[in-house]
């Protein structure tokens, strides 16, 4: 008997947020254990449950899973959000890998020293506007369907929506030149499980406050 899915992380987005999105999108309930201090993380590391002494850690189906992509792949496959065959899966993989590249830049942005932040923001906006969003816009344009892959809701839709929303937090009009992505955003946001996750009170985490960054860095790096 599997029991509820349990997430172990700090109370913030980081690398766990995409997992929260995917679980929510799949309609899977989950519990969360937050660690607040470095000591708590160290305790977790010493307990031997972390294969590589790192979080995210997700307890699911009797496994203690680590490594974000392994966790996402498992959840997606289990909940039929990974395409119907290998060709759809490879498209999904291409699209989500790119969102994860962009998410990484977004995640690291608050860690930039203040003097580099403006330049870094410009770089991220440039990549979203000139590299990633045009690619997704073209995908939607070419097939004219509602979802990115196989005319069916998949993890690609969830992850691209997540990235769009995070980019909008950085630059509200980021989708100005992407009409199809605007339509996509509206459609996916209206899917009942996603809509629920977007409401206040859900387990979706807020963007980290700048003043919290040193504290979070201390938890992970001492």
């Amino acid at each position: 008997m599997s029991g509820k899915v349990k997430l172990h992380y700090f109370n913030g987005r980081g690398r766990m947020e995409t997992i929260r999105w995917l679980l929510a999108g799949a309609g899977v309930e989950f519990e969360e254990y937050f660690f607040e201090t470095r000591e708590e993380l160290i305790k977790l590391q010493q307990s031997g449950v972390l294969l590589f002494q790192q979080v995210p850690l997700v307890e699911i189906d009797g496994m203690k899973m680590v490594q974000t992509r392994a966790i996402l792949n498992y959840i997606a496959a289990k909940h039929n959000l990974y395409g119907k065959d290998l060709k759809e899966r490879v498209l999904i993989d291409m699209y989500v890998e790119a969102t994860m590249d962009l998410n990484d830049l977004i995640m690291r942005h608050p860690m930039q020293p203040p003097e580099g932040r403006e330049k870094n923001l410009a770089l991220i906006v440039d990549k979203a506007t000139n590299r990633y969003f045009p690619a997704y816009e073209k995908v939607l344009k070419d097939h004219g369907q509602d979802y990115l892959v196989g005319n069916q809701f998949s993890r690609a839709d969830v992850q691209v929506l997540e990235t769009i929303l995070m980019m909008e937090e950085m630059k509200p009009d980021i989708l100005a030149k992407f009409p199809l992505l605007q339509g996509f955003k509206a459609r996916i946001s209206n899917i009942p499980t996603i809509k629920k996750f977007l409401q206040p009170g859900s387990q979706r985490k807020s963007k980290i406050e700048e003043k919290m960054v040193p504290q979070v860095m201390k938890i992970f790096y001492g």
Partner: protein
Amino acid sequence: MAGKPKLYYFDGRGKMESVRWLLAAAGVEFEEELLETREQYEKLLQDGALMFQQVPMVEIDGMKLVQTRAILNYLAATHNLYGRDLKERALIDMYVEGTTDLMQLILMFPFLSAEDKEKQHALIVQKATNRYFPAYEKVLRDHGQDYLVGNQFSWADIHLFEAILMVEEKKCDVLSEFPQLQMFKARISNMPRIKKFLEPGSQRKPIPDDKYVETVRRVLQMYYNVKASV
């Protein structure tokens, strides 16, 4: 009609090397277009061949695949190197992500400043010895089988083998405290396709040198030094 897969990358390891290993282990012959000039790269961009303007790119089964993990996942799945079910796949994914993180430290090495290189070298050895190798040693010790997952050769074995060889290039006796990994390495080395790939004249690429770094910088116009990862 399939045709041989064609790899588009620089004449060096980088992110494409894991793809070469996987193809070799699966016994799949492949062609390579080696990027030497900015013009070649710009032509690929203009032709719309690179979905996110990046390489690696692999032409296979009528597709132009980008994003290393997408390529590797596809190749593993199509060649039965991805486990028999979701749980085996989950284990393979966890293990492969670990070796990816380890190899990433080595991958960025040639692009670091001289000062950062020394620190990075120490970091690679430390992480291999204290974080990654102990995990794989334990996996092998706990189940006592020849392969990491499901008593069957998989992508996880190929990837770990590649990682071991790369770390040994940094510190040749790095496996001294890992007897299971030593035996694992010997076993995998002896597999016919692996053995063949290890021989001179194969498509395996050598340790990156200055010429490789120069080529990458020139083709991508990437003239800054990569910062060592936290």
